[in-house]
């Protein structure tokens, strides 16, 4: 069986601005964080200059457990880099973060047979290196689940 793989990191590039940089610096250090409004406590993702609820610009960066819950997913068999990388199986996934008010990340599931993936399954973050020495959070099924 084909297991879901990570996207080859050397082809993955990110850009950042003043509001998203703390997220990526934390990820580089192997920590999953999310921006929480320092005034009203609402989480938002991705990080941005205002709280959409109260328009405050003050942020607390909450340290998360790295636990996630699968909200939905697709199973892809075509290379996202045609001509550069041969076809492989990868799983784009939308992952809810229970300890960040349920905000979601768009990520990939790895180390899992696509046939065994179920919506609502518990997940755990892992970090994977990409271009420029940065890291992206990926998810794998929680062991023993």
């Amino acid at each position, binding site marked *: 069986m084909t297991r879901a793989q990570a*996207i080859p990191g050397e082809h*993955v*590039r*990110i*850009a*950042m*601005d003043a*509001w*998203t940089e703390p997220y*990526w610096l934390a990820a580089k250090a192997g920590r999953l964080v999310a921006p929480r409004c320092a005034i009203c406590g609402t989480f938002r*993702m*991705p990080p941005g200059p205002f709280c*959409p609820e109260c328009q405050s610009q003050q942020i607390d960066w909450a340290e998360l457990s790295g636990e996630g819950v699968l*909200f*939905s*997913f*697709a*199973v*892809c*068999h*075509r290379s*996202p*880099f*045609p001509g550069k990388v041969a076809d492989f199986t*990868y799983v*784009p*996934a*939308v992952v809810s973060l229970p300890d960040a008010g349920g*905000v*979601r*990340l*768009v*990520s*990939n599931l790895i180390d899992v047979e*696509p046939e065994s993936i179920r*919506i609502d399954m518990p997940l755990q973050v892992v970090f994977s290196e*990409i271009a420029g020495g940065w890291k*992206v959070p990926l998810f794998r099924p929680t062991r023993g689940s």
Partner: protein
Amino acid sequence: MSNPLYRKVAIVGVGATPYYRRGESQPQTITELAGKAILAAAQDAGISVKDIDGFAHYSGGGSGHNNFADTNLIMEALGIPEIGFTATLTMGGGGSAASIGLAGAAILAGDAKYVVSLMALQQGNNRLGVVLGAKPPTPESSFVQPAGMVGPGHAMAIMARRHMHKYGTRREAFAEIAITHRNHAMVRPTSLQKKPLTLEAYMSARMIAEPLCLYDYCLETDGAVAVISTSAERARDLRQKPVYLLGSVHGGRREWGRSFSWMNMPDDIFTSAGNLSIARLLYEKTGLTPQNIDVALLYDHFSPLVMMQLEDYGFCPVGEGGPFVESGAIRMNGSIPVNPHGGNLSEGYVIGMTHVREAVEQLRGTAVNQVKGAGLALVTGGPAPIPVSGIILGS
């Protein structure tokens, strides 16, 4: 609800180039494709191309995101002497239907008399299916692109999966949508796909982003469609039977606006087509209900989103789109015939403007697959980033 546009503006001319497979429209240029469609629309209306004095674009005016059929170049190419209006709806294909509303606003304001709404698409190497992956990363896209979400289909697959999970929707429903579109397209000379599509062929087709297979994706097309609108008074003196604009809504809610990007929509919006708020406003503005609509031209870039639009526009209850479609409801003899032209899925994909063309032909009574006595047509744009849009046209 106030609706000053109601029956004050009419579509009087429609023109199009042939539809080509991606890349096969060359060596024609994009301005040439646009020009040919506009000339055909002017001839259809019985006006001189030099009477055109307004342009109402959508998709940021950037047809196909990369190539531009810009007002400046079109005016120069066709010798259009002077215009009083040129504007575009923002973002992408979600604005297609409401480009007619934008034209209507210009006409009602007295800024222009004959306004062109247009899409000219020449994909070449700029394939829209992978447009998201082809762009350099931005701070915003960096929260999506690293997951290999290179095209809109990946997001749509994830939304469709959630709909299946919540409501028990089956792939057979998506197959029925794809096959119905193919059946409609097969008898149309303009169609790019005329080969029959069977359930077996659908089920054994290559998966692109599961649960979506090849046939859930729209075609990759080059071509141009132009639509000319004018005031209801002027329309009555022109060659064609006027097709009146009853209402136009574009925009959408913030909860949907996040869909193409970060997928943080609330769960009920996640499994919608983002058109709920558009539908509500459109029905309020026109005083109509889904039961009044004779034919629905629904933006069909991906088959599951047709089903979700049927729910958004109230043709069936939310969550019941699958069984509704599987019952044959969207076929020519069903309760709401959908895309009798074969749509983006099987006729050709010109970012929604073929749907406006088909609505006009249905209401003139000249369509290839004519819905008998069609008097009211719904046309939608999107589901895409805001704006999404919907209009109702009437004979």
